[in-house]
């Protein structure tokens, strides 16, 4: 958001200087309005904005800890760079905002403050340039694995299209949001309101064509990245439907902005705050819609070609499929499946292999998925599910392969049937605590190590 809003505010601050009389440093009434806009942006940036960055860390490391742990080690410098850039940006924004009042003491100070604003605008844009490269690098399937060089972030095919889209998009968003704020902060019918609405309308009209162009460029670039990751009609079908909707969203968002801006330019008096709430939300949703595309592209991986969305490494699959996943699990109550413990084993398998995406009875319930797939709510067939799961990834491309062996597939099927019959809710580690694999306790590992050492001593 800072990318678009800082230049808008700086531009408006500069307009205040031009509007001032010969005996004034700046038009104080105008300057006060622009200052209020910046104050709102300042609060949002330093409160919600700063925390969403940290929040991603918190939620991702809780929900997807192994992937974050792996990504950190691989992309440490990328994230360090991003953080450094981000810290710089926040500090500069604070300097700009907190020195605003003092800068009204002399013309020279005011001019310096405006110049700082333009500098900050450039710095914010550079921030985005770097972060987009980093994101692009991390999103490139398998690239980090074979060629871990940050420069690839700048040379990957989606980089420039993404930049071409994000830059004007940020300006457009800033314009819409700025229009909302200025209509709130100024009295209806006043000359200053009229002038402000016209000014921001010009801003929006200026950036709308670039946004549309950037969106088209980006829109056309994505399929190439998308098709590389999808090989079946099922995935294509889901993505294609979503993608078509995206096209209408682009046209709708930009068109709506332009309509409001044109009205604002020629009939400034007509524009009221309530008219702008929906468009502002729409434009912000616009960006969110685009970001959603990345989620589609990534499935079934959470790290392309390396880690599936169940947080298991692709390269670990042979050992799991040969020996079973329970054998090597840290937290499981069952390591070897017998006639007596299949249900319990199945639950452990579910927690390890399925629970990242599926619940027992809630959102994306595993029972619902099977019932929907079979078109019936009748009792699920254990044999059918057992036979289906080892190959389900070929029919559902966004799902990772089943990691375990045949016995575990059967145990899992038995458990899913149990969930359907009982309607039982599944409790997590915070309620039930954890069960520790008896082969991987401190005692067991030490004993094993001692045994190994003794064998070596005997030789």
């Amino acid at each position: 958001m800072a990318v678009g809003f800082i230049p808008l505010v700086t531009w408006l601050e500069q307009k205040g200087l031009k509007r001032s009389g010969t005996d004034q440093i700046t038009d104080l009434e105008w300057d006060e309005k622009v200052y209020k806009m910046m104050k709102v942006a300042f609060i949002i940036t330093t409160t919600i904005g700063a925390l969403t960055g940290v929040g991603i860390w918190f939620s991702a490391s809780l929900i997807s800890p192994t992937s974050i742990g792996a990504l950190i080690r691989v992309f440490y410098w990328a994230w360090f760079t991003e953080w450094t850039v981000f810290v710089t940006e926040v500090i500069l924004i604070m300097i700009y905002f907190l020195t605003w009042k003092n800068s009204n003491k002399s013309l020279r100070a005011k001019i310096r403050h405006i110049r700082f604003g333009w500098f900050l605008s450039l710095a914010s844009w550079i921030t985005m340039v770097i972060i987009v490269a980093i994101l692009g690098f991390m999103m490139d399937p398998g690239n980090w694995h074979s060629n871990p060089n940050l420069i690839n972030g700048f040379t990957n095919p989606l980089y420039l299209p993404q930049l071409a889209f994000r830059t004007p998009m940020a300006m457009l968003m800033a314009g819409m949001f700025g229009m909302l704020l200025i209509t709130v902060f100024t009295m209806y019918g006043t000359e200053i309101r009229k002038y402000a609405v016209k000014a921001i309308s010009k801003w929006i009209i200026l950036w709308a064509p670039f946004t549309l162009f950037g969106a088209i460029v980006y829109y056309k670039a994505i399929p190439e990245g998308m098709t590389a990751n999808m090989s079946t009609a099922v995935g294509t079908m889901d993505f294609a439907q979503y993608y078509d909707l995206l096209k209408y969203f682009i046209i709708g968002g930009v068109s709506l902005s332009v309509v409001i801006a044109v009205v604002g330019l020629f009939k400034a008096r007509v524009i009221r705050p309530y008219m702008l709430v929906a468009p502002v939300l729409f434009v912000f949703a616009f960006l969110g819609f685009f970001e959603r595309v990345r989620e589609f592209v990534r499935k079934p991986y959470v790290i392309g070609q390396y880690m599936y969305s169940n947080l298991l490494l692709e390269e670990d699959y042979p050992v799991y499929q040969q020996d079973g996943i329970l054998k090597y699990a840290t937290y499981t109550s069952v390591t070897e499946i017998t006639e007596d413990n299949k249900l319990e084993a199945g639950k452990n398998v579910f927690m390890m292999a399925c629970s990242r995406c599926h619940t027992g009875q809630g959102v994306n319930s595993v029972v619902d998925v099977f019932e929907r797939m079979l078109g019936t709510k009748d009792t699920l067939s254990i044999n059918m599910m057992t036979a289906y799961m080892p190959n389900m990834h070929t029919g559902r491309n966004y799902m990772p392969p089943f990691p375990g062996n045949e016995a575990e597939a059967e145990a899992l099927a038995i458990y899913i049937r149990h969930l359907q019959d009982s309607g039982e809710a599944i409790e997590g580690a915070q309620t039930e605590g954890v069960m520790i694999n008896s082969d991987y306790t401190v005692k067991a590992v030490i004993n094993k190590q001692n045994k190994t050492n003794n064998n070596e001593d005997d030789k």
Partner: protein
Amino acid sequence: MKMINSLLISLQTNIPTPVPKDIPLPLPLPEWLLIIILVISFLAHLVFVNLMLGGTLLTLWSQIKGLKDKKYDLLAKEIASTITVNKSIAVVLGVAPLLSINVLYTVYFYSANALTGLVWIAVIPLVTIAFLLTYLHKYTWKVFENNKAVHISILGIATVILLFIPFIFLTNINLMMFPEKWGAVKGFLSAMTLPNVFPRYFHFLFASLAVTGLFLFWYMSRKNYDFEKLLPGFTRYDIQRKGYSLALIASICQMLIGPVVLLTLPTKGIGWNLILVIFTGVAMALPAMWMMWKGLQTSKENIGKNFYKVVILMTITVVFMGSGRQIYRANALEPHQKLVKLRTEEFEKIKKEAIVKSKQQQAAENSADLSLADKGKKVFNQNCAACHKDKDQFIGPPVTEMASIYKDNKQDLIKWIKVPGKKRPNAPQMPGFPQISDEDMNTLTEYILTINES
């Protein structure tokens, strides 16, 4: 081996200690460098957390006192103006230690987070709410001029939240150091009852007040701070003495709690390296405290004379204490980290063997002289086996049925596979497979149509 065996002896509990598998990727930097980054970035973050929390507490105290004495209301307003800036910097600087601890203690940090998950993730909305309340309080001083109860309540709520958040952090960081407790902990409430959490929390609170005391001393001693205009009723000397008093008293309280913190730490992490560092830090603090005490006895012309010496000495103390914290963590986790490494290495070895075995199987399959139908079976397994079986009804009909329907009619079978219709109302819709190549389609349909001949 002696260390590992001593770990075994010291862990005689009913609940076993897990040895998780680590992520098989190298650290991006040497461990010692990551540790330095962690300690320094954490202390930088912590200073601003101290200022944020200490500032909030002092603002609340001043504003309540200001109900009777107007000059304290003005003092509260001035202190409040510093909180929002400090908290912004605190959040931004917090990313670096978060990143560093993720790298250095990946499995330990994540295990602790998972065990307290809901409360851990609650930090984000709690911080957001507290910050918005702080801004609301800051910018509504005039609005609530005649309704002080509401105005103070806003800050009161923010204060309670800001007091709770560091407690969450401390609980998680503490839990991270004790894998032997992971099997017993069920959620945040049980995690916070582990030894050392509360003593360390109170130590942290007094540290916040001490740092804030010194900060206010500096902030309101600046030459360009328009004291007479902003704080009539006080003299600069008054505020300086208050700052020093607060810092001194809070430091004394830390000195008293420090031994409790040390004594409630499980002994597994305490070594001579830790004790040496801690007591060196304490030794640095003593002359600083003495200077503050002398400063309180002196005149207004001389009170600021030793201020920067005090700050430098206290900074050194903080660095030693932060290092001590890291040393304890390293000491405590070293034996367990060795076991994690052992387990991870063992798994990697087994994994390589499994991969070799898997490749040998694939090579054996590929080297066989495959018929057209055998090749088709491979295509079938890759694309169709999720829903179809050879002889049995499954998600979709069996291959034997397909063979009967399309006997001698390969072309129509190919058409159906590419763009399937819907024959059975109760069965799910079959997706199309236009992406299957002509060559694969030929082998696949050969397999299907000859199923009854095998």
